[in-house]
């Protein structure tokens, strides 16, 4: 599970560099999340743009990832594709994460480079 990291202001942006967040990837994702978010105190956003499949184990890993953020911070998800969106809506977890159609730093017109 490759999770690339960048920061934009107080946002830690993690990009899932894989097409599937599924049962086979869930454990590795959680480990990467723990490592990536350990010392960050601001917003945490996951760019889901490359992910074309999410199952309930992958969803559980996202929830587990949110629980790693102390202070009740909500995990933010950007660019969820149709399958990810459907799984989030079916399980009502679309109300739990903060969803963005686009990456917020792109929408703000900032340079993403």
């Amino acid at each position, binding site marked *: 599970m490759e999770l690339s990291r960048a920061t934009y202001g107080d946002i830690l942006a993690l990009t899932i560099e894989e097409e*599937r967040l*599924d*049962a*086979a990837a869930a454990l590795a994702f959680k480990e990467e999340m723990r490592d990536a978010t350990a010392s960050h105190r601001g917003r945490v956003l996951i760019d889901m743009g490359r992910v074309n*499949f999410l*199952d*309930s*184990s992958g*969803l*559980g*890993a996202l*929830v*587990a990832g*949110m*629980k790693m*953020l102390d202070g*009740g*911070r*909500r995990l933010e998800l950007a660019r969820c594709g*149709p*399958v990810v969106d*459907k*799984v989030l809506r*079916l*399980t*009502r*977890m679309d*109300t*739990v994460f903060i969803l963005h159609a686009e990456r917020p730093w792109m929408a703000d017109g900032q340079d993403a480079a």
Partner: protein
Amino acid sequence: MEAVRSHLIAVEVAAAERHIEEARRADMLIVLGEVLNNIVEHALSDAPEGWIDCAVSLVERDLSIETCDNGAPLPPTLVSSAALPDVGAEVETLPEGGWGWFIVHSLTDDMTYERRDGMNRLCFSLKGNPAAFPATDLRTPRGVSAR
């Protein structure tokens, strides 16, 4: 779980070749993923010689799925319905699982379950009102090994 993943990718390719529309293909893969992972994680968790036989067929407008495995029996209550886990008010109390069967029931109809000769057989069809497809048999590669 790696075997489930590669099987799903094979089914996805087969479904695309048969021109099943994208939304329906997505539903099928979501359901298959939940069902197969449930079998691997629960029914076959103590079965070193575990196997799953999985067939997807497209007959006229109906996409139906049949799985057979040699694992532990399925709790009967899961066959009829499954509840959505409570979404707690606080992040700390959010569920980290338990959605699988709810997702399956949300997207399928006509679920039947049979336990015979130490094997589980689960059949169901996908919900929805797809466009007319030519009748074709979408047999997927047989025999997904559990590990």
